[in-house]
């Protein structure tokens, strides 16, 4: 089922929790709403579920406008952040709840619940009370309960945030596996960019109720459109420069900061200044100023963190702003001490320019 949001706005008093958001979520997509707390992602999800009425805009499931369909008739399956298991019902009864509400005959309920229990690996726990389950098991019950009604759309509100780090990784792979198996359109809310990248087909980054960027994980990572998207999705060095020229034939920008000249790939700049987003692992440490062409500059090591497979330096950068560099698989002899000078190169051929 395709989900289409058109100009959705949701107000809480004077606060625009969701501000004019339009999105299309394709059939069978695993779509993630990503953003910091308070960015409106949960509000948007709850609006889709029908717990909030949007103040403006339209929500469509497929072709059908569902703005005025009450929450209990939207045929969505929702997994809540705290699971919201019914504490007075057993695992089996929790999962069967939605089927009973739909007056499904008993034998079929037993069959479908049995099947989903197997799929989420809860065999043998049918008669347990939710309070007697571990966090991961509760999570599986919540997932099974949402899926067993064969919903058109699966909604998940930070489903992994209450689990410990290791379990979180296992569960997200499992959620992804089941989602692919069933081919169900899924809208997933999280504030964890790594989790978002790991599971999603597409991601929407939200900031203060507004949409920052929508795209596949790699698309956003390699080509962030805004400073916010760049910094929220992974880490990035933001560097501002003055434009000194534009070579239309080769799509190259000439720029300058702190007396240092740079040559960058990019479209025609819209103003006299440009902003770059440079991932730490894109920056190369070089032997000296003549080592490999353009964009080489010196810096002093301010601090370094050795992480085994990688070493991370903080280096004095252009305009006095520190730059973070990650060197992967460093040789022991190459490790620099604090205070040493180091030459590094910004990649000349990657698109670095972002909208500020």
């Amino acid at each position, binding site marked *: 089922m395709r989900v289409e949001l058109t100009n959705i706005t949701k107000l809480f008093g004077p606060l625009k929790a969701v501000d004019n958001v339009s999105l299309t979520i394709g059939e069978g997509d695993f779509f993630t709403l990503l953003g910091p707390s308070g960015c409106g992602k949960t509000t948007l999800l709850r609006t889709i*579920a*029908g*717990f909030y*009425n949007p103040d403006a805009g339209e929500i469509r499931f497929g072709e059908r406008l569902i703005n005025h369909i*009450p*929450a*209990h*008739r*939207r*045929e*969505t*399956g*929702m997994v*809540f*952040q*705290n699971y*919201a*298991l*019914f*504490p*007075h019902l057993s695992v089996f009864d929790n999962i069967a*709840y*939605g089927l009973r*509400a*739909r007056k499904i005959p008993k034998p079929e309920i037993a069959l479908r619940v049995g099947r989903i229990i197997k799929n989420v690996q809860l065999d043998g726990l049918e008669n347990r009370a939710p309070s007697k389950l571990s966090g991961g098991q509760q999570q599986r019950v919540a997932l099974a*309960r*949402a899926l067993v*009604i064969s919903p058109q759309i699966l*909604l998940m509100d930070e489903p992994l945030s209450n689990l410990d780090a290791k379990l979180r990784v296992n569960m997200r792979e499992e959620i992804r596996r089941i989602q692919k198996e069933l081919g169900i359109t899924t809208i997933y809310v999280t504030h964890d960019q790594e989790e978002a990248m790991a599971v999603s087909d597409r991601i929407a980054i939200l900031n203060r109720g507004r949409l920052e960027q929508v795209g596949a994980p790699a698309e956003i990572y390699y080509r962030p459109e805004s400073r916010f998207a760049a910094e929220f999705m992974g880490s990035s060095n933001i560097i501002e420069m003055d434009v000194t020229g534009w070579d239309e034939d080769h799509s190259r920008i000439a720029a300058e900061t702190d007396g240092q000249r740079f040559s960058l790939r990019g479209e025609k700049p819209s103003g006299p200044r440009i902003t770059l987003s440079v991932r730490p692992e894109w920056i190369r440490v070089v032997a000296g100023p003549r080592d490999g062409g353009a964009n080489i500059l010196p810096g002093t090591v301010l601090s370094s963190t050795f992480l085994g497979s990688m070493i991370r330096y903080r280096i004095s950068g252009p305009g006095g702003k520190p730059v973070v560099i990650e060197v992967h698989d460093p040789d022991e002899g190459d490790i620099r001490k604090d205070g040493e000078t180091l030459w590094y190169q910004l990649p000349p051929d990657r698109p670095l320019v972002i909208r500020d």
Partner: protein
Amino acid sequence: MRKYFQAWNIILVAIFVILFFAVLYPILYIFKASFVNPETGAFSLKSYATFLHYPYYLRCLRNSLFVSTLSTVFALAIGIPFAFFLSRYRIPGKNIIRTLGTLPLILPTFIGAEAWLILLGRNGLFAKMFHGIGIEIPSIYGWKGIVLVFTLQFFPFVFLMVSAALNAIDRSLEEAATNLGAGRLRVFFTVTLPVVTPAILSGALVVFYLCIENFGVPVLIGEDFRVLSVQAYNEFISELGGNPSMAGALSMILLAITLGLTIFQKYWVERKNYTMTSLNPLEVKRLRSLPTFLIWFFCAGVVFVALFPFAVVMVSSITKTQGPVMYFGQFSLENFIRAFTIAPRPIFNSFFLATVATLIGIVFGIVVSYLLVRKRGAVSYLLDLLVMLPLAIAGTVQGIALAATYNKGIIVLTGTWTILVLAYFIRKAPYSIKTTSSLLQQIDPSVEEASINLGVPPVRSFIRVVLPIMMPGIIAGAIIMWVTTLAELSSTIVLYYGPWATMTVEIFQRIGSGDFGPASAYATILIISVLIPLFILNRVSGKDLASSL
């Protein structure tokens, strides 16, 4: 969705209407009456002037404050060490002592008063025994008896509150103090005691409140020692064409005190409470045998003295009696036979009224709790104030207010059983709301949303998911409502009329006329009716019911 909210709005309005007519309006009515000259019908300060002018009335106020203060001091003196000993030291039979130690606050105070009359009254068992060997023991009548009964019945409140505070202290708190170089006594006086002080203060306020609003004890053993609640009742009852203004004025003075205490408690003391999440409770120490024995003796002794009167009443009920003279040692079932055959009506009345009031209270409690917890806002704040208000009104005052208000006019309820039910349910519903809403607070709203999301409409989701989860709180609340209604004397005595006398009224009147035998039979039925449901609930849910009073 919108319809759903409209439904709740209609319910909200209905609840406000009920609360207005059952709580606020009657109070305003007697407030106004207290400023009206009953002869001329004009505005007048005469009643308040009379109160201030005649030492007789002022003495009532002084007496009330005197017995309440003294009882509070004694209740603290017993309750604080009781709590400390039980939560910090190993004592044999600790659980039984703890459970029995909370019982007095559920058992009706006027039955306690009756027991001490049986023991130390004019024809009292002990009084005669000691007289026989030439010792005159001090009279139980007057303030001494009142303070004795109050202290023994109300110290458990101090005990419960202080133990709750003690159990909330994390071990690391005292360890930190020790680590910083404080000795044992210094730790106690600089850390432990200050941390439980708000609880002690709360306990003191509750006890003071219960003393000053109590009617049964001073009316039974106070004799010439008049207190405010009793005097207000007297003015009202002897009224009949007499002085509603004076009864109103006395009620207002009592109301000002109880309301003041409640506000002080809610906005000052409660705010001082330290909230802690105790991961490791304080260590329970094992003392050497002599100190252990002394502590045990104190705790067991207190419980024994507090519960002994109720045993006395139960024994009296199966003892041959003739008016106030009891032939202890001579067994007889005559009292019960009389109660069940000749005058069974009060028994029926009590159970009927308590059950009806409880059933209404349950529904009311569920709805109000839901509104309070789920539909937060200015309106729910107002609702909270109004619905809890009866907890700050003395039973006598509420009785007088209701009786005076619905005596004439469009709605006449005075002289019907419905006014009793109204008074009971409005006075006891707060208990149900407390137990139900505290449980509801623990249920995340998403549980309800999960049900809606799975296809069950909102109201049905509430019934299928929220209600079952709230059930333990509803049951606990219902039992508290039921047992406290059964034991309610102060408002009943003002509001009942002839055929609708309850067991409490019957006990009260029989004691008044010196008929201790039949009084004890009804009292025994009452004690058992109160204890059985509490016992069952305690067994089933393991809940300490007294703590939710």
